[in-house]
């Protein structure tokens, strides 16, 4: 039995108050959640802090998670949805901090200039995407979410997510100087 197969049982136990089961959920989801937040915030320390806050909130509100009939509904869209909302709530703070540090503010669309001669800076490229587009792209490409799961996590219509992923992907490919296959 893989960890993901055991997830519904751990969710059930965590909903019954088992901190040990919740610790296992943290263990299996921490890597992707932190990677997602690191790409969103472009700051490892802030991302890890936000990830911890996300898990704490998830623990305190885990009773609200509806596992669906036969416990078939996955846990991660709900978890990443919390992370996304927390990121949005704190975004003004992040922007202030980034601006203070002299970085480019988020949400500023930039024109991508392919520059294969320079070291690839994927962080800058993804940071320049609009937040919703970036989040949809990261969930579907880096975190292996289905479009439907990403739509659930971001509370967006399915069509919007598909469009965000397609456009974000196009921009990434163009910025990285590759050709779309």
């Amino acid at each position: 039995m893989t960890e993901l197969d055991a997830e519904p049982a751990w969710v059930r136990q965590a909903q019954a108050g088992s901190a040990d089961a919740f610790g296992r959920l943290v263990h299996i989801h921490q890597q992707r959640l932190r990677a997602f937040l690191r790409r969103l915030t472009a700051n490892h320390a802030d991302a890890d802090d936000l990830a911890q806050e996300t898990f704490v909130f998830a623990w305190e509100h885990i009773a609200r998670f509806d596992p669906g009939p036969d416990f078939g509904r996955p846990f991660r869209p709900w978890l990443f949805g919390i992370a996304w909302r927390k990121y949005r709530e704190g975004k003004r703070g992040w922007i202030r901090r980034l601006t203070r540090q002299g970085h480019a503010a988020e949400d500023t669309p930039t024109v991508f200039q392919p520059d294969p001669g320079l070291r690839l800076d994927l962080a800058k490229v993804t940071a320049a995407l609009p937040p919703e587009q970036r989040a949809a792209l990261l969930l579907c490409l880096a975190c292996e979410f289905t479009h439907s799961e990403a739509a659930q996590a971001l509370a967006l219509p399915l069509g919007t997510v598909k469009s965000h992923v397609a456009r974000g992907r196009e921009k990434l490919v163009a910025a990285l100087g590759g050709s779309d296959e």
Partner: protein
Amino acid sequence: MNDATLKSLLAAEAPPASDPRFVVAVMGRIEQRRFRRELAMTAGLAVCAMALAGLLAPSLEITWHDDFAPYTSNVVIALVLASITLAVPYFFPARGD
């Protein structure tokens, strides 16, 4: 450039798949929040109990002298208070215990 290449680029700086320190940090933060919440609740209850005791003190004193003191020993009173102290955590356990 295909999706596999993009995925590998995006996963380049991902945290480790297993990070016990992060898990411990999360569980520590959860415990810290719970402790603070319970401390605040206990302090609030204590303040309420003190205020109530202050308000009821005159009538309690009369009841005590007339109805209880002549018939009840201090040992019994101490035992009742100790039982209540032990029973409260049993009937109202903290989450995750």
